[in-house]
């Protein structure tokens, strides 16, 4: 069947299939309740608690079994001599997936087991149905391969069992040295572990087998690049690309290697070369990587970044989380340089952090931190109370925010406007066959504890969730929630009584997507918050964008939804000139050029070890169009930006672009970068709000600034995707030398107006208190 017909068919039938599956899920749920009720009629006692290493219940067990079978299918080489071992493995998987069963459970098991598998199949079917709608048919196989590899690898690498994995492939190669496929996998596993020289050796041997030559040469090109042997990488890349000139990924790695030696050597034929067209739009902005100079060059699988003032000295400090690593806490020395004070801070004990969000939940004037954990696995997010002396105390359990799940985005919000920050945690899927872990909304009880109210509040999400952010659809002051992930984005309107209504469909933002980061900002400065949702793009689309300056016709560029001011949104990415496809994992908005218009910074990549994608800076040219100025401004061609952030770290009006880089695999370590404009490009004003009746961080406040008869709008966010921007709001003013008016709408409804404010300074404003105080002027 031609792909276009298949695509139309999927688009037509997809929503119907989704509705059918949702209905079937409900029916099966009812049947299970009935079965359980019948079981409860007997006299049997409750189930015994799960032992360590055992799934907690039947549903967890069926998921666990399916995940194990997936791993077996991927890692077992099926040939007749291994059938016995495969059967043994399968029964081992079943045994290890066995849940704790009491007598009552045994009675109902014959009915419950098929129902449990059926509900799991429905959940997977639902994800598959939306993924199929979000992905063109010609890419299904590609996408499936990617998903299967990543999800079956994640458990191994997060739980640090890669040594067993290496040993398994080594053994295969020892037993059958002629098995080039096993050698190829050994090489790839070496790469994931960061043993690139060993990988290159194995892949060189594997490349001697004609059937696998192209694949092995490709992988070897990547390995050689990673161990800085660029000349040999070029040689292998050229040989590989000559075998299949259409392979864009090989072309890309060949190009990257050539960049490192000053350009393509003569032996690379012209038809195998490429040029970067995207990212070269002329700009006045020039960026320097100052991470080493200022002491923020952390090597890690970088994750969330948060900028906050931990000790109230006025200077902005930085927290960077890392896969496998502890969180690093960098204290600002007051001159834009940093001291690493992680040691003994408490945060250094917090390994496997994903998203990091700062919020002063007890309103004591010191921002606390929530660190979500292992967004593609299962971990325990942690709440850290700020002691005010550079140390933090883990209060997760006492506060009642402990749960086990694949926590991704964590974001603070005062959703009921009681003056206390509540916490929302978005949960992804921990395994390909894991059931959706509920997203959590923790209501702040005001005594240092929280109560989870997600279900009562009506925040039901069937999809694995990655991105989440709070904004305001209608400027009614009540924070509304957008979530994004593998499925349909959901927009929850705050009813003002502690509950929410899912208005995604009528709002027009629920198109199927392999969604990632999402946030709110007033992209067109009209006083109404817009939504930007980022989506997964496969590497070939990102390379296509790099070569052509726009994404392919069937690609998936970021989605800009403009607020129509009537509860609906319009997709306007094209109008804003956002036509590229990137694997965006993290993004934020800020006025880097001090022009009075918000620019966008995108951290890109995916977990694959052979994906090394540049961060992208989209400059707003003031006419409503974004231009990709990344490379023209000095950003590098490579990266894997997980946590991106923008902050005026030196207090001189220059927004620094902070990019925490690195991937999932132990071998995919990169150094965090901080890009600073070489010189300020315009005047600015930084504003920090302190709530009194409202929450102290003023999360949820809206600010309108008027300079030169032009308005700018900001919304104080409590975090989105991998981290949170500083609460300090940065306004670029260009050549304006005076701010005529600033209007603040505090979360509790108070309005405050200030006039004739100075420029090139950082001001502090307190709720209900007239005037302002200078925190510091441009240095």
């Amino acid at each position, binding site marked *: 069947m031609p792909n276009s017909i298949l695509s139309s068919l999927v688009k037509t039938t997809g929503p119907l299939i989704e509705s059918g599956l949702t209905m079937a899920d409900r029916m099966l749920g009812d049947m299970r309740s009935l079965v359980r009720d019948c079981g409860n009629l007997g006299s049997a006692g409750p189930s015994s608690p*799960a032992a*360590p*290493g*055992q*799934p*907690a219940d039947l549903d967890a067990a069926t998921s*666990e079994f399916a*995940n*194990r079978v997936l*791993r*077996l299918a991927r890692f077992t080489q099926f040939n007749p001599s291994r059938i016995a071992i495969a059967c043994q*493995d*399968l029964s*081992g*998987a079943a045994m*290890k997936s066995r849940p704790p069963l009491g007598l009552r459970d045994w009675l109902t098991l014959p009915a419950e087991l098929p129902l449990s598998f059926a509900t799991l199949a429905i959940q997977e079917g639902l994800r598959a149905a939306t993924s199929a709608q979000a992905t063109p048919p010609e890419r299904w196989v590609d996408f499936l391969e990617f998903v299967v590899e990543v999800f079956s690898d994640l*458990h*191994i690498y*997060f*739980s*640090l*069992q*890669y*040594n*067993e994995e*290496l040993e398994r492939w080594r053994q295969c190669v020892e037993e059958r040295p002629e098995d080039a496929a096993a050698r190829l996998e050994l090489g790839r596993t070496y790469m994931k*572990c*960061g*043993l*690139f*020289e060993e990988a290159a050796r194995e892949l060189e041997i594997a490349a001697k087998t004609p059937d696998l030559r192209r694949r092995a040469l490709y992988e070897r090109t990547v390995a050689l690049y990673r*161990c*800085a*042997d660029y000349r040999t990488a070029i040689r292998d890349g050229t040989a590989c690309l000559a075998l299949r000139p259409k392979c864009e990924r090989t072309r890309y790695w060949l190009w990257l290697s050539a960049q490192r030696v000053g350009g393509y050597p003569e032996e690379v034929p012209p038809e195998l070369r490429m040029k970067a067209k995207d990212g070269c739009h002329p700009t006045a902005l020039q960026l320097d990587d100052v991470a*080493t100079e200022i002491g923020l*060059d*952390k*090597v*890690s*699988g970088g994750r969330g970044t948060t900028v906050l003032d931990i000790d109230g000295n006025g200077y902005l400090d930085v927290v960077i989380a*890392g896969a*496998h*690593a*502890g969180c*690093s806490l960098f204290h600002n020395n007051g001159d834009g340089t940093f001291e*690493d004070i*992680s*040691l*003994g801070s408490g945060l*250094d*004990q917090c*390994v*496997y952090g994903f998203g990091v969000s700062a919020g002063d939940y007890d309103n004591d004037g010191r921002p606390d931190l929530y660190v979500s954990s292992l967004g593609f696995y*299962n*971990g*325990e997010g942690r709440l850290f109370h700020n002691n005010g002396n550079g140390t933090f105390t883990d209060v997760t359990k006492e506060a009642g925010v402990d749960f086990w799940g694949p926590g991704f985005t964590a974001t603070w919000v005062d959703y009921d406007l009681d003056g206390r920050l509540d916490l929302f945690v978005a949960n992804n899927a921990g395994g390909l066959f894991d059931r959706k872990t509920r997203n959590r909304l923790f209501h702040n009880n005001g005594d240092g504890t929280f109560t989870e109210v997600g279900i009562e509040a009506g925040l039901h999400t069937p999809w694995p969730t990655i991105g989440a952010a709070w904004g305001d659809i209608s400027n009614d002051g009540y924070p509304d929630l957008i979530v994004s992930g593998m499925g349909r984005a959901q927009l929850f309107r705050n009813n003002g009584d502690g509950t929410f209504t899912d208005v995604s469909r009528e709002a027009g933002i629920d198109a199927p997507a392999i969604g990632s980061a999402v946030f709110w900002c007033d992209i067109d400065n009209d006083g109404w918050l817009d939504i930007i949702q980022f989506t997964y793009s496969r590497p070939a689309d990102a390379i296509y964008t790099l070569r052509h300056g726009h994404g392919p016709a069937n690609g998936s560029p970021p989605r800009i939804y403009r607020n129509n001011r009537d509860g609906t949104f319009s997709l306007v990415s094209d109008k804003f000139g956002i036509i590229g496809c990137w694997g965006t994992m993290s993004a934020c908005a800020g006025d880097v050029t001090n022009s009075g218009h918000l620019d966008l910074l995108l951290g890109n990549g995916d977990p694959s070890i052979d994906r090394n994608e540049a961060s992208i800076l989209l400059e707003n040219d003031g006419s409503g169009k974004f231009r990709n100025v990344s490379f023209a401004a000095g950003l590098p061609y490579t990266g894997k930006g997980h946590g991106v952030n923008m902050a005026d770290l030196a207090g001189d009006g220059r927004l620094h672009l902070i990019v925490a880089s690195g991937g999932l695999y*132990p*071998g995919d*370590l990169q*150094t965090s970068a901080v890009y600073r404009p070489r010189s300020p490009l315009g005047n600015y004003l930084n504003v920090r709000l302190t709530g009194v009746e409202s929450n102290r961080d003023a999360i949820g406040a809206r600010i309108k600034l008027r300079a030169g008869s032009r308005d700018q709008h900001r919304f104080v966010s409590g975090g989105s995707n991998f981290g949170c921007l500083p609460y300090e709001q940065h306004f670029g003013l260009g050549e304006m030398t005076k701010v005529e008016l600033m209007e603040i709408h505090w979360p509790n409804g108070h309005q405050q107006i200030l006039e004739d404010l100075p420029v090139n300074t950082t001001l502090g404003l307190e709720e209900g208190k007239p005037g302002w105080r200078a925190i510091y002027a441009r240095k």
Partner: protein
Amino acid sequence: MNTDFKHTGQVVDFALPPVCGGSGRLSQHLMSRQGAVVVFWSGVCSHCVRYDAYLNDFENRNPGIALLVVAAREHESRAQLLTALSQRTLQFPLLHDADRAVAHQWFVRQTPTAFLIDANRRVIYRGAIDNFKYSQDPDCEPYLDAAIEALLGGGSPTRPETATFGCPIESIYYTLPKPLSP
């Protein structure tokens, strides 16, 4: 009273069982040397493998500096360490911090984490051995070597501390309710 080096700048002496003979006491290794490098390490850490040759050759390159490698990963047995030593022909002095007491005292969370201390056990450098680049990479930053050079030259390193990377020495995930084989 704080006895940790974060507050005093000086590490306390320790004695750990050597895996293959020799002395397990830090102060003995420091005798008649200008300093010592202590690397917290694991036989199964893939990042540590990258430094096998570096550590094997360390004392030849730095005769004035002692090297102590401390195996500190949870659940890693002496037998496993011996296997790693023999399979990878590792020749450096290896000590076993089986209960991770020294690692905790030294705030170590990951392997490899390197410390450079002077003869008075003052911490001169703490952090990563380098920035995980190969030596032929123009972007390679040999943090530890630079610190050793500074110590031997009578100065202070420009980078006395870097963030570490690597594999956690202990984690709830080792007792995860999802053992993964098969």
